[in-house]
């Protein structure tokens, strides 16, 4: 009920931050890039772009785990489902097209595809169906990966396995900064990933590329505060990691989660849909847990990575070189009901969010 119960949505404070942002806006246009669908949702849902000064642009990079899952990995999941396994995954993943079809389409044709909220739910399903292979199609960044690691390390049932496509954020930031042309002045780093990896995890990227990185929370005032800190760094010529979300994020992060990740996974090169291979940006299940690795167990191959559809600018959107409205297909040929590119598929993809909430800067 109004007045808004969330202090972090206070309109007077928001106005005060908007004034601060305007005062600290550098004389030249700047681009601040975030890599988190939830940040984009906060920005779009609350119409925050209206509060930004002219010349300050905020873009979403590869922030949607569903969008960046490669067609090859999706094909594997579809094939596993078609071959009789129970494939469990997050709701959004069922709508993403592989080369031939989506998991939802496979389900409509008789495959057993189930929506779960966690890896642990998939283990429960495996215990309920001891006679059938149950595969958890694991997607997501450092936030969802510890959950997968935990179930692997607990010794799940023999009929359970994981198709692991977890990805890592700091290597993605490095890849964004080292793939020309680069138009990124600062990063708004994802709060929830940072609760796991800690603020220190970004230090190398900030130093190597001399780029400010501000960790932000997900309430509107969190985002405005973080953007203000980023602008201040830019004005002062600093490139430091600043934690603007101290109520959830510490310098070292969640040691227990990091330990789980290290015990269950090792870094590997990973294919990000629309971007290509980024070095050491993925997680692979360690050798001693191989019996629960669906990739090793079922030897199912995907089709070669698909060419991007003509006209689709998703690669530019994912690399923060374009906003959805720059794409000629946005809202015309490409909609959430018939997505052409990956950014329109996942609910946290920039195009999907812009479509859903109208991410236009000014009304």
């Amino acid at each position, binding site marked *: *009920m*109004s*007045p*808004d*119960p969330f202090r972090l*949505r*206070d*309109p007077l404070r*928001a*106005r005060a931050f*908007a004034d601060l942002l305007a005062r600290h806006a550098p004389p030249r246009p700047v681009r601040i890039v975030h890599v988190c*669908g*939830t940040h984009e*949702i906060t920005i*779009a*849902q*609350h*119409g*925050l*772009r*209206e*509060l930004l000064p002219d010349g300050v642009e905020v873009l979403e990079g590869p922030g949607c*785990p*569903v969008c960046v899952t490669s067609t090859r990995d999706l094909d594997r999941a579809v094939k596993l489902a078609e071959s009789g396994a129970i494939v469990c995954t*997050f*709701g*959004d993943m069922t*709508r993403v097209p592989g080369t031939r079809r989506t998991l939802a389409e496979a389900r409509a044709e008789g495959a057993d595809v189930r*929506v*779960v*909220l966690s890896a642990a*739910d998939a283990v429960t399903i495996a215990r309920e169906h001891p006679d059938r292979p149950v595969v958890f199609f694991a*997607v*997501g*960044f450092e*936030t*969802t990966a510890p959950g997968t690691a935990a179930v692997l390390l607990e010794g799940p049932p023999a009929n359970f396995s994981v198709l692991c496509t977890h990805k890592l954020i700091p290597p993605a930031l490095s890849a964004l900064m080292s793939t020309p042309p680069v138009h990124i002045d600062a990063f708004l780093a994802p709060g*929830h990933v940072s609760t796991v990896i800690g603020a220190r995890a970004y230090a190398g990227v900030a130093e190597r590329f001399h780029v400010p990185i501000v960790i932000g929370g997900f309430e*509107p*005032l969190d985002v405005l505060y973080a953007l203000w800190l980023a602008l201040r760094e830019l004005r002062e010529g600093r490139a430091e990691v600043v934690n603007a979300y101290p109520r959830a994020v510490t310098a070292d992060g969640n040691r227990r989660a990091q330990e789980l990740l290290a015990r269950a996974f090792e870094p590997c090169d990973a294919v990000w849909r629309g971007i290509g291979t980024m070095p050491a940006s993925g997680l692979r299940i360690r050798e001693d847990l191989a019996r629960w690795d669906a990739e090793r167990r079922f030897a199912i191959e995907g089709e070669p990575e698909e060419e991007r559809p003509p006209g689709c600018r998703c690669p530019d959107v994912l690399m923060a070189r374009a906003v959805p409205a720059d794409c000629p297909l946005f809202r015309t040929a490409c*909609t*959430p*009901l018939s997505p052409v590119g990956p950014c329109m598929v996942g*609910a*946290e993809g920039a195009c999907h969010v812009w*479509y*859903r*909430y*109208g*991410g*236009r800067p000014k*009304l």
Partner: protein
Amino acid sequence: MTRRESDRVTTLHGAGGEPAGKLLAERILPRFKLRSAGPIGLDALDDGAVLELPPGQVVVSTDNHVVKPIFFPGGDIGRLAACGTINDLAVMGARPVAMTMGLILEEGFPLADLDRVLTSAAEVLAEVGVALVAGDTKVMGKGELDGIAINTTGIGVAARAISDAGLRVGDAILITGTIGDHGMALLAAREGFALQTQLESDVAPLWPLVAQALQVGGITAMKDPTRGGLAAALNEMARKARVGIEVREADIPLRPEVQAVSELLGIHPLEVACEGRAVIGAAPDRADAVLAALRGHHLGQDARIIGHAIPDYPGRVILDTGIGGRRFLEMPIGDPVPRIC
């Protein structure tokens, strides 16, 4: 020794013979107190019902009901079916007079559950004075259906039917109560979410509330925000009337629990279904009186004026976000799914 009768639906219940007759006579008919709206009603078990309707425009509405889980906090599929049909008639400005009900049951469905569902539907019809005049029961094999599906058709009479296309620039937009309760209660109750909440569905028959508002006059358009929630209802009203609609997020009544579950699941409360709310367009000079009439009824205590029809952006809905931004409130796409992280 006689064999104990099964406590579950069997294929015999749908075969039209004695077990079917028994199901009808013992479990279905006696639950519904009002069984005719004219010379031939449900008790006649004839091939059709004959109605005598009061003068006015006759409004017909039909709906299929499937819901998971069938029993949810605040209601069940029976209550939902009866309310859904009554509400579709009510937001057309029609007093609901009669309803038909088609039941499709899965073999093995517990008869006790059927009793609960029918009792719920009967309670709603009795509350609003609607007769159940015709029906049908079919049984499908185990695994061919998920428990139960219900079709209802309602017949109502309006002095002058009100469509959802009648908004004019300047009209106030009212909502009769808090938003998203039904959709979020269901999401919270679904297996796997394991959320301990006090959330309950808002499922309720709207006619008595709407009747009170209609007496004031000046109502230009009505719609119940079911699938797609308030976002879909407002977009449809804007598109059909070719006007813009501007609403203030801060004025949209929302329970804190709904807000909390919504934040947790990443599903916007404006996009999930309500089953006991109406969106009402009212002429500017009558809006306050309509609001007062709504608030005078227990179902309308949280009613609010949330915005207005505007000449700009015809066919679109603008949301003033509480924080000082503005954005389009878009038509929802598909069923909402929880976010990943």
